[in-house]
């Protein structure tokens, strides 16, 4: 009896029962449709997104009559002309784009050693510590974290107090561009590490030992072996950090204190402050376009295959 139970565990019996139920609901002759059925939720979600985009496209072509607060019935490209000519929007766009590029570069540089150490360390305790340290900020949330930085970096904050102790006058560490960049890098680091780690795990350690025995010091091993093989990870992490930074709202809003608006903040202002949904929609569309062009550029330069998509070539 006991032997029978171990030879055919409860888990399998439950699976049998579930399979029986599934067969009753979804007979075998429907089976060819199963893959499509599984795709359905994703298709629906993407479909909704497309519908929303169409709506936004529609809104972007209508101008706001500032006397009546009504939207025009006929289409015009006036909003696009405004978005492309008004200096404010150009400044905001440039600020977001430059920030996204800087943040991406800095984050990847910082994330790599972290991910490398986490993957390669022989000490399970250190690995666990690094993982927890990585996930902790996720639990805190972006807004709370940004406020935390306000407290730490503010005029009466810990950093300025510490500087005071060594005789440095209080400095303005927040509500400026570097503060926003700093906050973004700190926010993006875990994403980048999490995307780099699997790519590094996929590189056999023996390859690095081999490079060593073939005469490469660690710098050259890194340049000629680790970096090229980790490329899918860098591309993936780079795309994620780039798009997340480009479209970020909370960090520029809180750490920039209104003086360092990104595109998302400008869109927010149009929708909820000036109530010009037309212009807001236009800015949103242009942000989508900018992001798509950037990602498209990355894929064109490095190939989508580098994201380990498509069948593995190795």
């Amino acid at each position, binding site marked *: 009896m006991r032997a029978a139970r171990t030879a055919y565990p409860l888990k399998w019996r439950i699976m049998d029962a579930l399979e029986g139920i599934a067969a009753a609901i979804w007979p075998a002759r429907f089976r060819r449709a199963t893959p499509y059925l599984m795709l359905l939720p994703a298709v629906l979600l993407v479909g909704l997104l497309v519908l929303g985009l169409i709506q936004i496209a529609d809104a972007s072509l209508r101008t706001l009559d500032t006397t009546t607060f009504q939207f025009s019935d006929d289409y015009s490209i006036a909003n696009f002309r405004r978005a492309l000519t008004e200096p404010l929007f150009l400044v905001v766009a440039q600020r977001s784009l430059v920030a996204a590029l800087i943040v991406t570069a800095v984050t990847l540089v910082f994330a790599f050693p972290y991910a490398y150490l986490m993957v390669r360390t022989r000490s399970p305790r250190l690995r666990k510590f690094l993982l927890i340290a990585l996930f902790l900020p996720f639990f805190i949330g972006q807004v709370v974290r940004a406020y935390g930085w306000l407290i730490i970096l503010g005029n009466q904050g810990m950093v300025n107090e510490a500087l005071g102790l060594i005789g440095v006058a209080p400095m303005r560490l927040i509500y400026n561009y570097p503060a926003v960049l700093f906050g973004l890098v700190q926010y993006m680091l875990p994403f980048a590490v999490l995307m780099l780690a699997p790519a590094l795990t996929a590189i*056999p350690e*023996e*390859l690095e*030992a*081999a*490079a*060593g*025995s*073939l*005469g*490469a*010091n660690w710098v*050259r091993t890194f340049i*000629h*072996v680790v970096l*090229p*093989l980790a490329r899918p990870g860098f591309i993936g992490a780079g795309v994620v950090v780039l798009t997340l930074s480009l479209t970020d709202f909370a960090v520029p809003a809180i750490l920039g204190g209104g003086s360092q608006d990104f595109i998302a903040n400008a869109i927010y202002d149009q929708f909820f402050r000036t109530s010009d949904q037309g212009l807001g929609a236009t800015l949103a569309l242009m942000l989508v376009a900018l992001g798509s062009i950037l990602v498209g550029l990355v894929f064109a330069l490095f190939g989508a295959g580098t994201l380990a998509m498509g069948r593995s*070539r*190795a």
Partner: protein
Amino acid sequence: MQEPFRAGASREAEGGREIAVTVRNVGMDFDGIHAVKNASFDLPKGRFLTILGPSGSGKTTLLRMIAGFQTPSSGEIFINGEAVSAVPPHKRSIGMVFQRLALFPHMTAAENVAFPLKMRRRDARTIPERVERYLALVRLGGYGGRRIHELSGGQQQRVAIARALVFEPDLLLLDEPLAALDRKLREEMQLEFRRIQRELGVTTINVTHDQREALVVSDDIVVMDQGEIQQKARPIHTYRQPRNAFVANFIGVTNFIAGTVRSVSEGGDVSILRGALTLAGKIGDPVNPPAEGGKASGAIRAEQIRLAGDAAQLSKLDCVLAGTVIDTIFEGERMVYEVACAAIGDEVIRVFDHDPAAHKQFDIGESVFLGWNARDMLVFR
């Protein structure tokens, strides 16, 4: 075991050849596990040494210490007479072929072979010609442009060898690179290793758990077990004069008959008592000989035992036992008989018949006689 390899080492010293590698009292501990214990040997220039041992015996650890990937917990390794503990791998002149090859998947075969030359800043103009020469050496001429995954297992093997040799290292290390290949290819590559090694004369240390490979390719064999070197000798000596029961058991098919030592003579003759039976043999390990009255076991190779239907045919042999065939295993080039002998408590003795077509065959259940010569039985304590 006190310096069981001493005889082999001194023979080399007498030969007067330059020593390429000296391993002196090297030990390696991994938090409590002694992976390698007090290992010592000398390897003269140009020779092919194989470290042979079962899985987990410390072979890879010893090799990695020579390559510089690990620092010995104790002892010192000398390459060309210089202590190398403080020298990182990339500053040692060592070519290594790894267990899983470790070819760079993002490079072509030629780029893999060119890599060590580039890393060692060789003149860029000479690199292509040199790469082509070494690809030709491993019979891969014209394959340089292939990516690694476009090559077969055997071809990848050859790329790895070319890559390890192209910069003319002082020492070539091989960590079971053939273990993953099927038998036919493995045997082909073993001969290939031997050919290339002889052609270039590069000092080589090969690691394997495959006794056949060790016998086929090596000038010398170091047998390891549980982190300790059991014997260092030429293949033929390792096989014919194993220094202890482990070596006798690990290499070849050996029958052991345990008993009590009755007498030991000056000339190396031993006789052991097993029940009513007295077995004559030779001392297996002169450094650690069996003592009168102590326990010992006689080791006799399966191919050194003759099998016959009646005892008269075996009258020229020193020791003859009666038994019953309990199994026959046909292995193609030989027949293996398993024979239970009543005189030694129905213990099973394995016997090879290397020419089954020419000899009388025995069936399971048949009564037979076994015989061997006293000089073929080695007695270990």
